[in-house]
């Protein structure tokens, strides 16, 4: 997978645990030890109560589509062969919203409010990306 041609995150603090989780097949989120708020993106500070204390928790990995778009133009050459592709804002059940792709779903089938669950695709030997697919009934 050395020829992976799309942008990759830089792994370090405070996001290392998030990406380690993806590699292990789970979404991990920081939870504030003082007020209970989940954090995303990873941060040293709780933006609700300014606490510096947090614990990493395993997310259920399920949520709903808050909004979505379909890319018909690649803004990076690595995505050229994937257009048209779906990007969505996903509301996880824990109360955080993140950007990800919707996969295993025809474009006509995606909708706001659709229930989705996380899937994990290795990009390189070191890094696995979290995507989402529709929850099967």
């Amino acid at each position, binding site marked *: 997978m050395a020829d992976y041609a799309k942008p990759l995150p830089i792994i370090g603090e405070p996001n290392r645990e998030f990406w380690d989780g993806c590699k292990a097949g789970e979404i991990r989120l920081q939870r504030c030890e003082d007020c209970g708020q989940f954090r995303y993106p990873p941060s040293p500070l709780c933006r609700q109560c300014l606490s510096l204390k947090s614990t990493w928790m395993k997310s259920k990995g399920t949520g709903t589509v808050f909004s979505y778009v379909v*890319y018909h133009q690649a803004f*990076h050459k690595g995505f050229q062969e994937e257009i*048209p592709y779906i990007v969505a*804002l996903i509301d996880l059940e824990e109360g955080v919203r993140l*950007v990800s792709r919707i996969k295993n779903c025809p474009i006509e089938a995606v909708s*706001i409010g659709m229930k989705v669950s996380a899937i994990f695709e290795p990009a390189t030997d070191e890094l696995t990306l979290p995507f989402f697919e529709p929850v099967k009934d």
Partner: protein
Amino acid sequence: MKLSSGNYVIAGVGETPVGKLPNEDIVSLSLKAAKAAIEDAGLKKSEVDGLLTVKTRNATFLWSIGLCEALGISPSFTTDLDLGGATPIAMVAHAIGAIEIGLCRNVVCVFGDDRRTGGRHHGQLHRGTEDTEDPFGFLGAPGGYAMIARRHMHEYGTRPEQLGAVAVTMRKHASLNENAQMREPITLEDYMASRLIVDPLRLLDCCLVSDGAGAVVVTRRDQARDLAKPPVSVLGLAEFHPHRFLSNAPSLTTSGASVAGKRAFGQAGISPEEIDVAEIYDCFTIMVIIQLEDYGFCRKGEGGAFAEGGHIELGGKLPVNTHGGLLSQGHVDGMLHITEAVKQLRGECGKRQVRDAKLALVSGNGGIMSTHASLILGR
């Protein structure tokens, strides 16, 4: 001092051509706009003791000082600001604050960029989306605004034809502006036939990419002597910045204008109905619709119908972006929204002049609906 006293004024404006300017760069464009604004105000260079600017992608370390040096100014107040498309208005705010506390007397606010033909050279600003958005292909501004448009459509039933009405109107206005990048009129059919970039946004929903610059001179009316042009007063000015990244936006359908606009109208002591002309930050068509609602020109959710009804055209209830805006005149981060408003209030706009314009609203929006600034000008 209260803004509504009218003592803080924009005394001069400067613009360069916009579009593809391969023989220019951010330095030459910024300097030419600054020079034009200083001369328009009728000030001597020695009277300018403040300069504010923006460190755009190709700018370098100590950017504002570099521009000052090139202008032959040793300022008593200068810095770069960084609020995306809200920056030009924020510069006016910072200029007024600096003058008010006595740091300086006459401030040039200048924005220049060569993003169309300048390529990437020494300066390279990262966007901060590298870990959370880029790996998922969520790249470029159209994606973020498409996310917003989709949600507005979902909540309020906004239709592509309504976005198209904004695009068609901006082009119509640009056709009356000699300094516009795209002057060929378009129809709603042209809009609907334009290719999807990031569904639901089409090519004609997206602003232009331009080389160009604009500048204004901010000063105090009671200290301004021998100005060349009638000064335009800053009557209201407010900022509100709801988030940085879209995943933490409190709303995808309400912008910072909902807060900043109320404050600015409150300062000016006027209501939205009294505005004669509005220069609304139009990075994407959906943002005109959202801001028409958030500023109270129509009810929430009715921005699409307001635009479709012809109210934003010259001759309509609220002429919007009389210069053609970012969508058709050119993208100079909203600085030309301010210069256009000033020229409208000075009655200098020729074929696109709003008759007897006395009060203008200007808005600025940066990031992905992340930053917002509101400016009310009057004569």
